[in-house]
């Protein structure tokens, strides 16, 4: 009996240590990022760095406002395209999909997750960019927009990113929906609700935490994606008001210029990483707060 209790305690310790790994990892990344980024920020001037509209490292001008706005635009776009389609597709997978075609479809969504981003990039460049360009020209000719853009745009990047976050959202949402006990659904049907009403009023609310987790993971992937985005978004480091125009994202800024950057320029890029990191912290905190609010309902 005694040895058994000892193993129990020992394993509990092991589980605890494992749980600490993620905390340790974040702490290490934090230390590394801040130690390398903060000096550059103070040298450039924090306010100037965050609100500066011009990024010309060769002329010692480091303003990342366009990139901040760019990341926001592109991520929002990806959410608009990816989240509804992702959730509705997982509803299909969990509730509608006939057994005969379920397996191949499921395998297909998993495959979507394994396609490297470079492929998405080239696909976007060769297929989506020309489509968006002709779309822009059509709008321009009918006088809806002032500038047709050239296809490498916020809209293109949003579409491709929307595609890229689909498997993450579908995977998590579907398994969360399947985890909802069957009697919830049956009960709702027995009360006379239609299938759709039961799904959207009973199952999805019950699977809420999984659905939110999927969306958060998707947002994380959208903000963090670089290799595909830099091929199709144009990467102009300036502000724009049109989704048919190109823009540069925070991650794009790092990847594009890290290769050749030295000195203050390199540090400014790491500082860009710090801003990105703080961004993600803010998102996570607000989601955590939102969730807590929802749990108390």
């Amino acid at each position, binding site marked *: 009996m005694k040895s058994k209790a000892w193993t129990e305690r020992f394993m509990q310790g092991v589980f605890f240590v494992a749980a600490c790994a993620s905390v340790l*990892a974040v702490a290490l990344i934090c230390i590394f990022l801040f130690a390398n980024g903060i000096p550059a920020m103070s040298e450039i001037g924090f306010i100037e760095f965050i609100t500066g509209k011009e990024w010309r490292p060769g002329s010692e001008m480091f303003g990342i406002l366009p990139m901040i706005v760019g990341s926001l635009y592109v991520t929002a776009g990806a959410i608009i395209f990816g989240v509804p389609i992702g959730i509705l597709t997982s509803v299909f997978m969990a509730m509608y999909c006939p057994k005969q075609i379920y397996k191949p479809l499921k*395998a297909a969504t*998993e495959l979507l997750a394994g396609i490297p981003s470079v492929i998405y990039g080239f696909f976007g460049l060769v297929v989506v960019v020309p489509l968006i360009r002709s779309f822009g020209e059509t709008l321009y000719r009918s006088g809806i927009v002032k500038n047709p853009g050239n296809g490498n745009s916020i809209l293109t990047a949003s579409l491709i990113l929307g595609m890229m976050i689909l498997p993450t959202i579908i995977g998590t949402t579907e398994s969360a929906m399947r985890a909802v006990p069957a009697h919830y659904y049956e009960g709702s049907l027995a009360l006379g609700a239609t299938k759709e009403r039961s799904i959207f009023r009973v199952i999805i609310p019950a699977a809420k935490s999984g659905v939110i987790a999927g969306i958060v993971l998707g947002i994380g992937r959208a903000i963090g994606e670089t290799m595909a985005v830099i091929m199709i978004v144009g990467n102009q480091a300036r502000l724009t008001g049109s989704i048919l125009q190109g823009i540069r994202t925070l991650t794009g800024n790092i990847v594009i210029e890290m290769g050749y950057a030295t000195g203050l320029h390199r540090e400014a890029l790491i500082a860009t990483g710090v801003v990105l990191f703080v961004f993600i912290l803010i998102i996570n905190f607000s989601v955590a707060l939102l969730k807590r609010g929802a749990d108390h309902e």
Partner: protein
Amino acid sequence: MSNKTTMADKFRTYLKHPGSFIVMLLVMLSAIITFAVLIFLIAYILVNGVPHITPSLFSLEYTSENASVVPALVNTITMTFLSLLIAVPFGIFSAIFLVEYASRGNKFVEVIRLTTETLSGIPSIVYGLFGMLFFVNALGWGFSLLAGAFTMAIMILPLIMRTTEEALKAVPDSYREGSFGLGAGKLRTVFRIVLPSAIPGVLAGVILAIGRIVGETAALMYTSGTVAQIPESIMGSGRTLALHMYNLSSEGLYMDQAYATAVILLILVVGINALSSVIARKLTKA
């Protein structure tokens, strides 16, 4: 459920509830869009890649003439295996801690949740830079598969943790109570009862994680290096398929081989997914 409802019944229900009908249409439309995009994407890769798959692509040694994928393929498998070896135990153990051991409302649990979510949001390029500074330089491992695997392990940890957590939560409490009632200890309950029923969920996470590993470029570029050969040990440098593809495509000299590599990458992913579902079936039966 709908076994006994006929088409006519369905139709009548939808007439009465047009809202439901629209929702159903939306669901169908979304599924169609998703799979159309998918089929289109795969067709695009196949059309561009398959004609360029030649026997010389499978030479044992990489040279600038044949652009062989074999070393990269071996490296990809090694990298996936190593990263999972590190991340899966940590991921599952942390999830067990969070679901089975930690008391509700524990402040520490919230800290772990928050850090996990933070980890999942960190862009891969930042992981790459961190990996280079920490594993490659500070720990002195040099550009190596090991440095790459550790970086990847941190990257996929949140994925595995989250999916395992969800799967563990989905195991009904009656299972646990039944096991306790029969006199099993907590540890035994976790490993014999709870974890086995959560295996399919855990596996879903592992599959997503494998997808991320084989598709990753930015984080590995700075950690595992870009040598196009099979290293002698895990302390040597080697590039994975995705990185191989990125390198082939970046100067525009080997675009055809890059697409062919993409096809092989796809086949690899299909193979891994099939293998894991076989394992899942074996595990759930046992």
